[in-house]
Structure formats: C-alpha cells, structure tokens
C-alpha cells in the first residue's frame, strides 16, 4: 500500500513537472508534432484493420441473431453497429491497441534514454526533461487518439456494411437507414471524452513507467510490460466511470 501511494505521488509530481513552462516554445511544438506523427501515422494501419473487422464481425453476429427473430428488421443492424462502435468498441478497442503499441514504445524509449544517460545529458544542458520529453508525448496523444477513434468508427461502420453485403444480410439502403436512424450527437461527445481520457492515461502512465526506470535491459522490458498492463487496467476503470456518470 505504501508503495502504491509512493508511485501515485511520484506520478503526480512528474505530471506537474511535465506541464511546466517550456524553455523555447518552438522546440516543444516541433517535438509535439513529431510525436503526433509517430503516434498517429504509425498506429493508423493497425487501428484501420482491427476496427474494420470489428464492425464486420458485429454486423455478422447481429444478423445471425436477428434471423431467428423475424420481428426485428435487418436495418436495425446499421443502428446497432453505429451505436456500438461510437459508444464502446472504437474508443475502447483502439485505446487497448494503442496501449500495447504506443504505450510500450513510449516506456521502452524513455527507459532506454534513462539507462543510456541521454536524460541526464538533457538535464546537464539545463533542459526541463519531464517537460521536454513527457509533455509533448501526452499533448500529442490527447490530440491524436480522438482522431484515430473517429477513423475507427467510420471504418467500423464501413466494415459492418461490407460484411452485410458479403453475407447478403441487408441492402446498402437498409444498412445506412439504420446508421442514420436515431443518431444522437451526445454519443459522439461521450466517445470523444473517452478518447481524450484514454489518450492521457495511456501516454502519462507509459511516460512515468519509462522515465523512472532504474537498472538495465531487463528493467526496461518489465517497465514496458507494466506500462501496458497498468494503463489498460486504468483505462477500463476510467471507461466504467465515464459510462456510469455520463450515460
């Protein structure tokens, strides 16, 4: 328990330092842009592939169940896929994928920098290392993760449409009637709240785990794993509270 509060305290102090006033705004902006490119472009293929197939699988599963209940019209599938992707599947699955890909990458990058004294080199120069190395990663993540989630929603809905056509469950007109039926902007708001919180959670926890590594290659590996596991757990807790409070 003492260790938990020590780590929580260390995390909060590091976060405060990470958002200190930058020495030179242009350098921080450039670093944030570079991180956004790494996180966004680097993660796009896996997000695109997984969300397309999740949308497709959702459509197939609902079509399978609706066929046995003849009273339910097939155009409902479009509505269910849309709602499921926006409210839960796109933000949560994307965040878990990003925790595995981006989170472990951040933790191992910072861990390696710590072990190879690169962070010390920045400090000797007089650079505020948490602000320069962590701040841009979190800022980039908070901006880019919602963008990726929006792309995941669009591709998931298209994946559902493709799977439906492939299985001949519904027509294009039926599916997109469902997609548009009962659309509520509040769902998108909740999705964006989740995406921003997930972006902050996965990047900040991964940065903390990487930045505070001590030891060698084995410890870097452990911190990388811990970053993925811990950020995934915290994101699921955050997910529950957002759903509980906002729905």
């Amino acid at each position: 328990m003492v260790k938990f509060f020590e780590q929580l305290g260390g995390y909060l102090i590091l976060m405060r330092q990470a958002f200190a006033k930058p020495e030179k705004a242009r350098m921080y902006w450039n670093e944030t842009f570079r991180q956004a490119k790494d996180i966004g472009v680097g993660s796009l293929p896996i997000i695109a592939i997984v969300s397309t197939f999740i949308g497709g699988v959702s459509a197939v599963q609902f079509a399978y169940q609706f066929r046995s209940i003849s009273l339910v019209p097939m155009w409902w599938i479009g509505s269910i896929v849309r709602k499921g992707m926006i409210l839960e599947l796109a933000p949560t699955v994307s965040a878990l994928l990003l925790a595995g890909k981006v989170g472990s990458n951040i933790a191992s990058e910072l861990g390696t920098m710590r072990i190879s004294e690169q962070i010390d080199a920045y400090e000797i120069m007089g650079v505020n290392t948490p602000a320069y190395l962590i701040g841009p990663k979190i800022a980039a993540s908070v901006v880019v993760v919602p963008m990726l989630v929006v792309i995941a929603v669009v591709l998931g809905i298209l994946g559902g449409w493709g799977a439906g056509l492939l299985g001949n469950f519904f027509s294009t007109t039926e599916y997109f009637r469902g997609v548009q039926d009962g659309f509520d902007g509040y769902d998108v708001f909740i999705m964006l709240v989740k995406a921003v919180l997930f972006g902050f959670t996965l990047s900040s926890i991964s940065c903390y785990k990487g930045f505070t590594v001590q030891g060698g290659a084995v410890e870097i590996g452990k911190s990388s794993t811990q970053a993925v596991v811990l950020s995934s757990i915290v994101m699921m807790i955050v997910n529950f509270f957002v759903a509980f409070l906002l729905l």
Partner: protein
Amino acid sequence: MIEIRDIKKNFGTQQVLKGISATFDNGKCNLIIGKSGSGKTVTLKCMVGLFEPDEGNIFYDGRNITEMNFHARKDIRREIGMLFQGTALFDSLTVEENVQFPLDMFTNQTEAEKKERVNFCLGRVNLPNTNKKYPGELSGGMKKRVGIARAIVMNPKYLFCDEPNSGLDPKTAIVIDHLIKEITEEYNITTVVNTHDMNSVMGIGDKVVFLHEGLKYWEGNKDEIMQITDGELFDFIFASDFLKDLRRNAKY
C-alpha cells in the same frame, strides 16, 4: 574553480561518499581517480547536480550550487559541458542535430550562425563530414568526439568527463585525452575528468585526486604520483606485479 566541501552521500544504508573535500583548478585537467566503487562517479554526479549530496557544499567560482533553487541551478548548468561514459548521444538525431541541440534550445542564433558554430566544433574535434550521420553509424572514438563537440558548443566554463577512455583502444584513448587537454587550455575551462586509466593520469593529470572507499586518500599531480612507494594508491597505480617490479627497479 570548483570547490567541494565535505560532500557526503548515502544510498539507503550504504555510505558511498564519507566527506570529500577538494578543489579543481581553472584551466587545468583535474582528475578524479580510484578503484571501481570508490565513489568517483557519485562525486561527479553530485558536482553536476544529477545527485543531491546529503551533506556538504559545492561552489562554482564561489557560487554555492547546493543552496540554489531550480532556476538558478539551470543557469549554472548552461555553463557546464559534460562528456558521458557511454557518450549519451541522442539516438534519433544526427551528429549535427546532437551538437546543435543546445543552441536550438537556449540561443536565438540564426540557422546560419548555428551551423557555423556546429561545423567549427566538429572541426575542432577532427570530425568533418560526419554531420548527417547518426550515432549508430559511428565508431566508439568518433562518438566520444561528437560528445566533446556537443559539450563545448555552448562555450562552457566547466567541462566534466566521465571515463572518457572507456571502451577505446589505447591509441584512440590518448587522442581523446589530448583533445580534452587542448580544449581545456585553449578555452581556459575548469575540467574534471573521472578515470581509472593510468595513461590519462600520466598524460593529462595537472591535478589528481585519489578516492578510496568514499574518502579522499591523496591529492597531487602526475609527477608527485610517481613518488608513491606503498599504500592504497601504490596498489592502484601499479596494479600488476610486473608494474610493481618495474616501479621498484626504477630510479626514482
């Protein structure tokens, strides 16, 4: 001049520095030597502010860094250049970007001025035409030279070198030593070198501080060190029986 007064540092229950005092002179190569675990690196890291000493004071030309707040300490750090044991070059940046980084972060020079300064520093360490290479493409000696170029790019008043010869062949090690010595005298820098390489001691040791088990055991220069005939320092310098016999038969 840098002065350390009664520096103590513990890690848990282990007392690593037990009260070290020494002065490091301006325009000279000041060497801290000692066996592995004697407290050399901890002393150096306390001096540059990477470790906080538990007790004692560190003065940079009379300015007590241990009593300074974060911002005042950052100003002093901009007067410090450091060559790390493993060079600590930024992997994702080219040689040119590595050397230019402090200029980008802390000066308002134009791009042309920065390029000129970077090229001057890389030329000074005999590394022309490597600007666009990445650290991974360089040899150990070249990395050390890039590390020196980065350390001097801001015209530091104080230069720290942690084991500058580690991992280098004897010939390259001498080249690096001479480079450090030349730069120290040319720019009148206070240089502190952490080493256990006796070639360095005899080559560039204007002043030598020998640490043993967290305490300053001996202080002198490279000429005085050869007068030592017994004790911990003798065992350290003449570690092998061959060297001991050589020393005993020498006409000192």
